[in-house]
């Protein structure tokens, strides 16, 4: 009897852990691909607007717990139902994309080139060295940076929401932060994990 109770408890525990593992599963690879596509079309002025293609599910397998792997075998249906996929193209993100792309072309690009503005570690932009700019431009640059950050914050929120996982916002932000920095052109500045500015 006691054995049975223990058995049931263990099963329940494993099931609980399993549920949690699956629910918090974040499709890192898919998110990276989607972020790359978005960032690529913002940074590359010649590229066309992002094609309405959703990225294929690419479960990240590197950080799986053994318990979760066992559960993968036991309940594959859960995965099938919760197919990891990151969708980025909605009317909102398109609007944000277009604003960001235009802003990048018109103002941000030269600011990044000169090192006055850099990419932060939390997926935003910041004025790194205002002294590089003529005085009368500094206030305008502050406003541009504030505008860009409002759009970026809204983007991360909307991507999480569009994928029906508002709780993914922080992970999406982190993924974007990494990809912005990876795709930064040589000479641009970015913040490393400690917040110090580095030049690419």
């Amino acid at each position, binding site marked *: 009897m006691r054995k049975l109770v223990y058995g049931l408890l263990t099963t329940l525990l494993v099931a609980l852990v399993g549920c949690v593992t699956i629910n918090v599963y974040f499709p890192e690879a898919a998110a990276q691909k989607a972020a790359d596509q978005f960032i690529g079309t913002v940074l590359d002025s010649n590229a066309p607007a992002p094609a*309405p293609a959703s990225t294929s599910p690419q479960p990240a397998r590197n950080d799986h717990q053994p318990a979760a792997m066992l559960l993968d075998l036991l309940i594959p249906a859960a995965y099938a139902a919760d197919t990891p996929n990151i*969708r980025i*193209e*909605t*009317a*909102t993100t398109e*609007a*944000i994309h277009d*604003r960001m792309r235009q802003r990048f072309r018109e103002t941000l690009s030269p600011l990044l080139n000169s090192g006055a503005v850099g990419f932060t570690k939390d997926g935003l932009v910041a*004025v790194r*060295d*205002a*002294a*590089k*700019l003529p*005085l*009368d431009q*500094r*206030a*305008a640059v*502050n*406003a541009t940076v*504030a*505008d860009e950050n*409002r*759009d970026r914050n*809204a983007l991360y*929120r*909307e991507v999480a*929401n*569009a*994928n*029906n996982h508002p709780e993914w916002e922080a992970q999406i932000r982190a993924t974007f932060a990494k990809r912005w920095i990876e795709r930064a052109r040589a000479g641009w500045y970015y913040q490393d994990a400690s917040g110090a500015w580095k030049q690419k």
Partner: protein
Amino acid sequence: MRRTSSHLLLRFGILLWVGLVLPARAEIALGAKTVSLPGLKLQEVQALVGEDGEGGLKLKLRAAKVDVPSMGWRRVAADLQGTLQRDAHMRWLFNGTMQLVGAPGAALSNAKVAMVVDEAANTLEVDISQAAAQASMALPLDQPTHAQISLKGLPAAWLQGLLSTIWSGRATAGKLDADMALDLANKGVQASGQFALSAAGFDTASGTVAGQGINGNGRLNIDTTSTPSRIDLDASMRGGELLLGPIFARLPDHPVQVSLTATTHNGAVDFTRLRVADADALQFDGVLAFNAKGEVQKLKLDKLQARFPAAYQRYGQAWLTTLGMRDVRIDGQLAGSLDLDASGLRSFAFDTDGLELADSEGRLSIKGLRGGIDWAADGERPTTTLNWQGLQVYRMVNGPAQSRWQSRAGALSLQRALEVPVLNGKVRVSDLEWRPAAAKGRRLETSLTFAGIDMAAFSRAMGWREFQGTLGGAIPGLRWVDDRFEMEGGLTINAFDGFVSVTRMSLQGPFGPSPVLSANIQLRQLDMALMTSVFDFGSITGRMDGSIDELRLVNWNPVAFKANLLAGSGGRISQRAVNNLTTFGGGGVASGLQGAVLKLFKTFGYKRIGLSCVLQGSVCRMGGLDNDADGYTILEGSGLPHLRIVGHQTQVDWPTLVSRLKAATEGTPPEVR
């Protein structure tokens, strides 16, 4: 100190004496590793004294490293050459050149120097000139650390070294005229006098505090001998641009009086007295403190008087733009006070006898604002009244209202329920409590009641097809949490002879570029005949129920919802409405034989119409009355001819669907694909 200096004078005397006594044509070279004077240190000094053949002495003095800490000069190479003569009054006259290498701002890179030493009068006079810049200095011989200085057209950058001793910033441009009394000490300098600056510029390492093109004149006292260093300034400034953190000021062409006392320590600047008077725009008394990073640590403004639009154009525009409010139109005047520190807002108060305000995108405008608000983070403040003639939020025009406010323990509350006329109805705001200091968490709580708001006026304001109805309801709890307004309770719209209720509303960033509205909507017993006539969809009779759950509008466009619509009581549907309904199934107008048959009838009887759509990331997952592998039934007919509309496309692209619906309701035939 005095001893060292007399020591040096003695040495200098010996040197002169040797020079005078020695036979003609002789030259004497002297070298010293270090020569120290109060506030002055010379290293690797070489002096050469010789006869110039005209009764005078040729002097050459070269020092590889000169340090004048009080001037901020470090390791400056100096080269002084000239002739020394004695005139009839037994004064020593020196005429020559001075070249400094490595002085801040490239000061005195090639200057002419004239010196007069008058032992009888106990004075040393030095005149230095380089191009248009002139500096003259007079000092008593027995107290060489005290000097009267007169500067004309001196490049401001030459004072870079001096500035660097009190401030991390640097002068970038401009010319300086000044008459100053200067006392040099080992640890610093004391100076006071009159000055005039033209086209001056300065900048800081972080670039957050800077100025350019500034003209001004006034009185200045500087004392860097103590810690912290202290500056007193009373000046009148004209023209130019100033950047102070988030504030970018464009100074007018008429004089602006600035008077301040500042202390600086390790790069931090503390304005313990700050008075600005720009008569037709902005006046205040206050204190202001920046830390070494250029961040505002304290700002306290008293007796603030602002006149708009001048104050906005000259001082407020850049700051508001950073906050996302571009091109605000603001008119009128305002008196007030403000107190904030590193932790946030401590108190503010304003009072106006007429202010108009409108943002450029038409999201918000206030007309005829009168009265004021007085808030403090602690304690109790007197009651104030605030009235306005008109308030417009987006396209919703609200009428005049009077409000009474009081601040207690950091919460600003509405003393009396506020009634605002809106769209032929009324909104009553009560139990409002606002905590301005709370940057995060709950900032505002209130309850709202809506009564008799005219949907016809509302739909007109929104640019929709006009429909009749009234909106009412209560939101017993509205909370402003972080950047989101959460609303408890709900609104009910009586329209189309039925009810639409909106619950669980929340609104995020209402005045930002991407406002997010989420809500649940319930539809009860809507008369579809009335509805379809308004939206020109064809005609359907019968009643409709339904729900639109988890609706999410971003920038007022739907991006997600779970909609379920059902007309279950039967009725008739016109041919045009049938065509339009097929749009939902992803199809166009029925063609071929089917279409030809359909065209014989004007209306059809139906038993049920049902449609569901789950919108997620621009794809709508469609469903109907029943779903099977083949498709889903949208309409189940009754009687003859028996009609059944089945949708086959379960995944419909939302933008395409919207454009088709738009085309359908605008009367143009849907595109056949």
